[in-house]
């Protein structure tokens, strides 16, 4: 009698394996790595801003970090599990050891010193992943743990060595990342987008930002590729991005900003990169579809909150790490929703109310500040015949600037600076800035003077505020 082996079914399985998912992820990152080589290596090199080492620096940066996490994990397996080095390396590779390093390099500023990068990589592997029990058991996204460590412990060192700007951007843009401008106020197209080119630069990714997260376009292509190959939880980025878009659209609409504003918000701060690659990290995100929806929605709300209500303008990293802690609870809710749709009502309405109230209150908070500028004062206002003469003051760089502004027949006749203590006032004189303020129909859109940004912005605010008062009087 022939006895057959008894085995457990099912006896056929889907062709998709963990290795294939990892491979797809790697393929989707290739264009992004090549783009950072182009943006942070080739462009500065072609423009003569860096040497041959600088040309390949972005690639070295990314590969080094990848190598560090791979070696850290291999050595961990070698010494902890006492395996030979070859087995350890294969195990590390199978356990996605390269990804924390790869992602870490892509979310850091290009000017992060290499020794800090190495330290961050080790932290990412050990603290982010291995102490939790390795692949599949970590609660937090390992790459983001490494990044959080570096950005909090070494932020000063990094900004001293150049921060987010590569050698080409330092000379041509001379501003920091786009979102850092949001902290000072709601901003306008000219303060937020124009200094970096146009919205298409944001879309393509030729703007300052972390090593690999500036290109919305490439992240979008990666998202489509990963979704088609069924390699990521596509629901998360969709709800994440949509939430940020809708909330910033509301905020923008309240402040009369166009559709460019929400687009600017989703194109910057590494949002798309974070949404596609970090938020979808399978190990640290919910396993249930409804859970993934809630997770995406909450990430959107948190990111908007971080961007507007805290001093950390990017918000993506912190949002994801925060939400990582709640995955367990979100999946509990997700399971309930899967069994009965009625469980969807409560979380969804909480999220809706939360999202709406944050958008609306943030939106109106900017309106109030633009109506009442605490630094602006009307000292006196005289009206005779067709002339109105204002004496006004506005806080500048070195104390209050006082000026006499004369309006005649709905136009500014003259701006006379009565008193100022500005260090770089000569630059304003040289730029003929005062005359521009007098003659322009659209004061808000005049370029400020570089090298005397604070002073020229103060003067601009002063004129705008006086205009508002003059218009208010004449409409009555």
């Amino acid at each position, binding site marked *: *009698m*022939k*006895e*057959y*082996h*008894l*085995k*457990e*079914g*099912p*006896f*056929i*399985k*889907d062709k*998709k*394996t*963990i290795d*294939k*998912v990892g491979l797809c992820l790697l393929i989707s990152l290739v264009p992004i790595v090549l783009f950072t080589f182009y943006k942070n290596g080739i462009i500065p090199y072609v423009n003569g801003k860096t040497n041959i080492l600088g040309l390949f620096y972005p690639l070295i940066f990314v590969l080094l970090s990848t190598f560090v996490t791979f070696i850290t994990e291999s050595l961990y397996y070698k010494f902890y599990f006492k395996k030979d080095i070859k087995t350890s390396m294969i195990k590390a590779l*199978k*356990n*996605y050891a390269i990804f924390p390093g790869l992602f870490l390099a892509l979310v850091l500023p290009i000017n992060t010193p290499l020794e800090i990068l190495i330290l961050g990589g080790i932290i990412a592997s050990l603290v982010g992943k291995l102490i939790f029990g*390795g*692949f*599949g058991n970590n609660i937090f996204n390992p790459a983001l743990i490494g990044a959080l460590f570096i950005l909090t412990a070494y932020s000063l060192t990094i900004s001293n060595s150049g921060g987010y700007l590569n050698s080409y951007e330092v000379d041509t843009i001379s501003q920091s990342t786009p979102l850092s401008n949001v902290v000072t106020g709601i901003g306008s197209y000219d303060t937020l987008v124009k200094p970096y080119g146009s919205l298409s630069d944001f879309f393509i990714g030729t703007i300052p930002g972390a090593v690999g997260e500036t290109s919305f376009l490439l992240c979008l292509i990666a998202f489509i590729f990963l979704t088609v190959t*069924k390699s990521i*939880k596509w629901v998360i980025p969709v709800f994440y991005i949509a939430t940020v878009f809708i909330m910033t659209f509301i905020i923008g609409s309240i402040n009369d900003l166009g559709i460019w504003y929400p687009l600017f918000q989703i194109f910057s701060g590494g949002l798309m990169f974070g949404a596609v690659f970090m938020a979808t990290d*399978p*190990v640290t*995100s*919910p*396993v*249930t*579809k409804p859970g*993934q929806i809630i997770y995406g929605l909450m990430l959107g709300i948190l990111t908007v909150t971080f961007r507007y209500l805290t001093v950390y303008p990017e918000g993506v990293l912190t949002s994801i790490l925060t939400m990582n802690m709640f995955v367990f609870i979100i*999946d*509990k809710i*997700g*399971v*309930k929703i*899967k*069994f009965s749709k009625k469980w969807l009502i409560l979380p969804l309405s909480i999220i809706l109310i939360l999202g709406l109230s944050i958008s609306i209150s943030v939106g109106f908070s900017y309106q109030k500040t633009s109506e009442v500028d605490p630094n602006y004062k009307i000292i006196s206002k005289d009206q005779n015949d067709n002339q109105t003469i204002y004496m006004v003051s506005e806080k500048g760089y070195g104390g209050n600037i006082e000026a006499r502004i004369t309006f005649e027949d709905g136009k500014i006749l003259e701006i006379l600076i009565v008193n100022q203590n500005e260090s770089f006032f000569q630059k304003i004189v040289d730029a003929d800035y005062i005359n521009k303020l007098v003659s322009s129909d659209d004061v808000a859109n005049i370029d400020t003077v570089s090298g005397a940004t604070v002073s020229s912005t103060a003067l601009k605010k002063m004129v705008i505020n006086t205009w508002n008062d003059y218009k208010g009087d004449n409409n009555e």
Partner: protein
Amino acid sequence: MKGKKIPGYKNMSKSFSKFLNPKYVYIPLIVRDELDVTVLVKKGNYVYKGMMIAKTKKEKYIPIYSSVSGFVVDTEVKTLYNNREVKCLKIENDFKEKYEEDNTYKLNEYTKEEFTELLRLMNIRGMGGADFPTYIKYEADKINMLVVNAIECEPYITADYTVIMNHIEEILEAIDAILEINKIDKCYIAIKKTNSKVKEKINTFLGTYPKIKLYEARNVYPMGWEKFLIREITKQSYNVLPSEKNIVVNNISTIYAIYEALKYHKPLMERIVTITGPMVKKPQNILVKVGTSVKDIIDNVGLKRNKDVVLVCGGPMMGKSVNDNLVITSNINCLLFLKDEELFISDNCFRCGKCSDVCPNNLSPVLIKDNLRNKERLKTLKPNLCVECGLCSYVCPAKINLRDYVVKAKGEVK
């Protein structure tokens, strides 16, 4: 409702042949789980084909029939589809196929009581795998709908397909009689949308039966599972049995068995089984007798090699691995011969959530696996709803056998 499209492997086994002359048959002395049966014949007795040789002890007994004519030789222990070892009556075939009587009857001249009685006496049981006595389904006072399940969603299996291609006229005739006898108004024959040959075949003969309609279901697994199918057709779900919604679901092969019972008073003694898989020389469908030893079938069809083979009784998704002491019962629709090799080495779960996405019953197998020791949490995950379709194990990129964990969890929460 989700489900997933999975490869069919159905083209390899579309030919049809008969293997009705095994030297011996082994008739299992069991009815579903009921081992307590009265044997009515003794060693050395001559039995006719279709003669009752044993029956359960209840008043409303279920009979067991001989599928050949010949002499009772002995009893022998054989393996069933679920790996259960059961005593069987070994009967030596005299190849004369002698019936005790040989009459034909009119299909629709039965009352409902006569009909259910006949199904019981002819030992008609679910041939799709469940082995449930069919007469019980028809004892319900009110039946609104009959669903004839011809989905056959498991890969490799073409037994129902073969029955349809060879016996569709008889099947339609039987359905029409069943509808008339039980006063059922609605009837669907459910097939896969993509199965154009079956569709064409049924449509050719469907014209004269206005009550019978074709239902074309999406080509996803496990569409053939009753509950899934009923939800697709009626948008309603039931808890345990379709009878809660006054629906009867019969496998299409069972309908053919009903036809033979009504027409010739012929008990369920033969069925079509798909013999397939990469290890079979010529994959095919074979008409075999209940009680045929799988060894005889193997000798008949031939395997590519006799070592390192895994025999699966049923389809590759839900079927069970068995040894070759297996004996054919009326609910076995497929014998699948696969290579014995370690195909799937499992990795760590990386929580992709695919198992949770595909589960037709909205379970989250990964969370059930995580909480196997946490009884309280396990209850909220409702592992008892699992139908063991195997889709979670199938889809897992880490090749983890999630179904095993869910089945274990089922035991935990009981």
